[in-house]
């Protein structure tokens, strides 16, 4: 078998429309960010009680997708599964783009964007997760670019080395991102399990998104794609989801069990709109229905069933990111145990958060930027293989012997 990669033609009306849509998203996001910089962050609806909003949720989500996409490329690079070589390039390219998106989301959320490029690197604070993480993120992007280079130039040895490095690095990136919250002082953030559950949710969302991307791209460009490849990925996704559910259960069971955390747990599970996101978005739509679809014989063995499950997971993990970031903020720190603050010049007690138009525009802008880069990559880089199929046994041995 001789695997060939190619770019798409990119002269259809749909492609042009897609690129124009992404570009207009990006421009809208740019204008929104400009407006926020000019007027101050209050226009996004964030306030002293809820200082983080949608952009942080999106940043965490994108970084998760990035690590998850790397897992798919790792199937070839680390574990040497030749069937998955066709997806390696597109997976690494997406991983790079998603990390860029995560960084853009964090960047547009800062109060003083003009200082972000100098101060954090000059006055590095080793104790701060926010200081360690940019190093991890930038390292991740550089490793991804090296990985992409190795894949494009077909360097076998370099690929396996860089793939292993990238795999380990992605775990570090995830642990770091989870530690931003897990090592924090808020009651609903503080949890040593959070970094680990971040990794699990990242693998689930990344795999699900890659399934959607692969099936979508191969079907639209009419390339050959063997169902077995997707079914195997579906099984992997199901296992990731089980791990996510397990971590969710342990974390919340712990909070509900320990007396001093019980109030917070009740707020988290039954305390408002975010509980709806948790139960309906994450647990039912994001976990239970996909697990059922993936394990049920009639749907788990068809591409259609797996694609539906993946779409639900991609949505469910977004809800998971939301319920990690926001309830921890709206739940107030307890200043006087046993007492209640009834009057104040500031907002005290449980706060509410609502999405604002500008935040959504900013998030769309980041999405537009990476969407545009993705479309550009499809047209000008040889990312997609001509076909992806199950290899016969003799083909595998032939390729392995050729590589040696």
């Amino acid at each position, binding site marked *: 078998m001789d695997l060939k*990669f190619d*770019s798409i033609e990119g002269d259809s009306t749909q492609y042009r429309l897609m690129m124009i849509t992404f570009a207009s998203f990006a421009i809208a996001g740019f204008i929104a960010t400009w407006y926020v910089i000019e007027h101050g962050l209050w226009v996004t609806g964030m306030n002293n009680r809820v200082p983080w909003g949608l952009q942080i949720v999106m940043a965490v989500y994108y970084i998760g997708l990035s690590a998850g996409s790397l897992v798919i490329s790792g199937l070839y690079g680390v574990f040497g599964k030749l069937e998955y070589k066709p997806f390696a390039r597109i997976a690494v390219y997406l991983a790079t783009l998603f990390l860029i998106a995560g960084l853009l989301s964090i960047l547009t959320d800062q109060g003083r964007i003009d200082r972000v490029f100098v101060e954090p690197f000059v006055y590095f604070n080793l104790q701060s997760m926010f200081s360690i993480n940019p190093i991890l993120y930038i390292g991740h992007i550089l490793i991804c670019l090296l990985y992409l280079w190795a894949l494009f130039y077909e360097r076998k040895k370099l690929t396996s080395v860089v793939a292993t490095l990238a795999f380990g690095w992605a775990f570090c990136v995830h642990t770091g991102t989870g530690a931003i919250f897990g090592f924090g002082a808020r009651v609903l953030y503080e949890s040593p399990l959070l970094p680990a559950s971040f990794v699990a949710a990242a693998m689930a969302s990344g795999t699900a998104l890659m399934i959607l991307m692969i099936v979508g791209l191969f079907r639209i460009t009419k390339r050959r794609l063997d169902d077995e490849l997707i079914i195997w990925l579906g099984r992997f996704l199901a296992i990731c989801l089980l791990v996510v559910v397990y971590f969710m259960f342990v974390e919340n069971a712990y909070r509900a069990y320990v007396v001093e955390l019980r109030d917070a747990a009740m707020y988290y599970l039954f305390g408002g709109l975010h509980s709806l996101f948790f139960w309906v978005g994450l647990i039912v739509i994001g976990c239970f229905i996909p697990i059922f679809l993936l394990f049920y014989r009639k749907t788990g063995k068809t591409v259609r069933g797996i694609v539906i499950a993946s779409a639900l997971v991609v949505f469910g993990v977004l809800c998971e990111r939301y319920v990690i970031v926001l309830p921890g903020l709206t739940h107030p720190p307890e200043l006087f145990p046993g007492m209640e603050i009834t009057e104040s010049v500031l907002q005290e007690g449980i706060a509410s958060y609502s999405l604002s138009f500008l935040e959504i525009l900013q998030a769309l802008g980041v999405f537009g930027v990476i969407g545009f880069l993705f479309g550009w990559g499809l047209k*000008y880089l*040889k990312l997609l293989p001509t076909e992806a199929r199950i290899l016969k046994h003799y083909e595998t041995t032939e390729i392995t012997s050729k590589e040696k």
Partner: protein
Amino acid sequence: MKINIGNNKTAVFVAIPILIILILILYGVISNVVAIGSEPPQVLLERPDSKYDKCVRDTEYMRFHHWELLREIRENVVRYGKRGEEDINKCKECHTSRVNFCDQCHNAVSMSPDCFGCHNYP
């Protein structure tokens, strides 16, 4: 070895943004060099205070390095609480007006430092 990275248009599409950035950087460098070479703008000394017979540093140093001095004073005050003899507030005693003092040079080299959003200099 055959390169398998993309088609020929790739190079062009990579090169164009790089060229734009290069032109911008070159413009920045050249415009600064031109500004340094030209005659410095006149800085007005409005009300010489009899307490001081000269500035804390000589004119040449102040013209090109005053921000280093200011940064040093700033670090001393903010980080170490050393509120000593040299103080930005004392500049105001002789150079009373920002328009005739700070803004003269900053406008000439098109700098807009954000000091005055928070610090009062009439």
